[in-house]
């Protein structure tokens, strides 16, 4: 029963995704489509953190590092290759590769969770500082100038293997949405697989998994690398949505934001972080237009309220609420039945008399 409900939920998520995919560009103006593309790319980032933190138990405070690396690698490769097809592939490999290298030292060095969070955050902030200082013309990779805090202008995505045919913003949205759906169902598949179930067990109790014969370091490394690749994909889509990639992707604000999305959406689910990112993205941009409250103040308040009142996050809490209501309804129904049965028995007895 539980499984069929899960399948239903997955199918409805897929359908809603397809409706947005095909519906949004027709019903929204260009600016809204572009900002939706940005939101979708951030949702992919949230998804990657939701996977490694919620399922792998790896609290990566610097998931934005791989997001930014993906974006930068794409921009640099696209400029040098003169096309986006190979650049996307290269960016994915660079993002996953850097996650693998960093992860190797952290997991095989057996760092504890706190140090892991600190190190990943530090890596992001180091990247932020370093890339901000690359304004001079001497800082370039191939023909791509790194541009310091101004960042790099990202050439738009083109049709596969045809660098002369650029995609319009609406089409970039299609690509981003498809990327989100693919990444989402990839994550679902990973968590259902033997690998994913073992990863969850490592989250629950590392020593036990190890004593069962699982190489905890290797499992964590693979999980971290998959997360890095997905964050890289998010970075590629982000760079394409706004047409520019700047060192700000590596700053503390964005690193913290990713954690907040996952906390609000709910750890241990995949759709939770996606919703968390989308909701917060629109909420902050709405508040930014109103300029009534300071956005940082608002985010801090939201975080505190969630940690205190809804520590599990939106999606797990909703599921719990739904389950409780249903079981209450079930017991109410069975109680009614019992009462009816009892009454009829009384009638029978009185008839016999």
């Amino acid at each position: 029963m539980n499984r069929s409900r899960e399948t239903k939920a997955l199918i409805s998520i897929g359908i809603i995704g397809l409706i947005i995919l095909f519906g949004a560009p027709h019903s929204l103006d260009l600016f809204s489509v572009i900002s939706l593309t940005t939101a979708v790319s951030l949702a992919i980032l949230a998804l990657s953190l939701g996977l490694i933190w919620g399922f792998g138990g790896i609290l990566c405070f610097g998931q934005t590092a791989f997001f930014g690396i993906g974006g930068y690698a794409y921009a640099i490769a696209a400029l040098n290759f003169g096309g986006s097809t190979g650049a996307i592939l290269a960016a994915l490999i660079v993002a996953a590769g850097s996650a693998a290298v960093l992860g190797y030292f952290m997991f095989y060095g057996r760092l504890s969770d706190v140090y892991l969070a600190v190190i990943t955050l530090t890596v992001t902030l180091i990247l932020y500082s370093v890339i901000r200082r690359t304004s001079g013309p001497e800082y370039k990779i191939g023909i791509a100038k790194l541009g310091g805090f101004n960042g790099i202008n990202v050439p738009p995505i083109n049709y596969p293997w045809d660098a002369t045919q650029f995609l319009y913003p609406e089409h970039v949205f299609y690509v981003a949405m498809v990327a989100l759906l693919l990444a989402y169902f990839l994550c679902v598949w990973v968590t259902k697989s033997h690998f994913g179930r073992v990863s969850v067990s490592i989250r629950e109790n590392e020593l036990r998994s190890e004593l069962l014969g699982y190489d905890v370091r290797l499992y964590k490394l693979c999980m971290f690398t998959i997360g890095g690749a997905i964050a890289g994909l998010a970075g590629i889509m982000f760079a394409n949505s706004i047409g520019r990639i700047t060192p700000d992707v590596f700053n503390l604000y964005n690193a913290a934001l990713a954690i907040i999305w996952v906390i609000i959406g709910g750890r241990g689910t995949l759709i939770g972080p996606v919703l968390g990112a989308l909701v917060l993205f629109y909420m902050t941009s709405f508040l930014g237009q109103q300029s009534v409250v300071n956005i940082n103040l608002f985010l801090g308040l939201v975080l505190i309220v969630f940690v205190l009142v809804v520590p599990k996050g939106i999606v797990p809490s909703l599921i719990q609420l739904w389950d409780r209501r249903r079981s209450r309804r079930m017991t109410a129904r069975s109680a009614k039945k019992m009462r009816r049965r009892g009454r009829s028995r009384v009638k029978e007895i009185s008839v016999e008399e």
Partner: protein
Amino acid sequence: MRSNVVLETRSLSMHFGGVVAVDRVDFSLRENELRCLIGPNGAGKSTFFKCITAQLRPTAGDVVIRDFNVTGSESHQVARMGVGIKTQVPNVFDGLDVEENIWLSASQSASVKRARVITSEVVERLELGEVRKSPLGSLAHGQRQLVELGMVLAGEPWLVILDEPTAGMTQDEVVRTADVIREINQSATMIVVEHDMQFIRMIAQKVTVFHQGKILVEGNMDEISSDHRVREVYLGHRKSS
């Protein structure tokens, strides 16, 4: 004779700073044996246990399992050799249900299909059917211990090492655990680290007594109970309390 020794330590020592927890211990275990390790608190049993399961890297000496020197290996490598390990504190997956806990153990070495069969067998054998969908965190302490024993079983080990399997169990559960241990011993060699003399009497064949990091005496239960040195350090101490 030497050929059927399956686990051996050669002058195994473990120091923590100035404290010598295990002091040049030579220990050997034959196939199909059921060996109990006893000793007062701080005798070095648990440190010895952690050394042979590679949770600790010994300061000196070697641990040899089936002619393979595992000193300096990782715990998961020892476990992969077919060694089932249960720690003192219940180490289970609290957020996962009973079936998933056991399945995770079974599927480490067995195929997907076989793992499912093993899981339902173990659940039946330990009479855990009623709680098979309950998360471990919601179960009583004794049941959690039993599930952990089930996880050890599900790995189909040939060598089983248990650290205080009856700690915190009710009398009924202790009896059931003793049955399970005898049953496991039909097909596997075992080491049981224990505190509870009652329980050891129920299962023991050969007993090794630890004292101050060294092996004090080895023998069967009767020899051990009548040994005056053992009485002094362990039983006598207990009676007076």
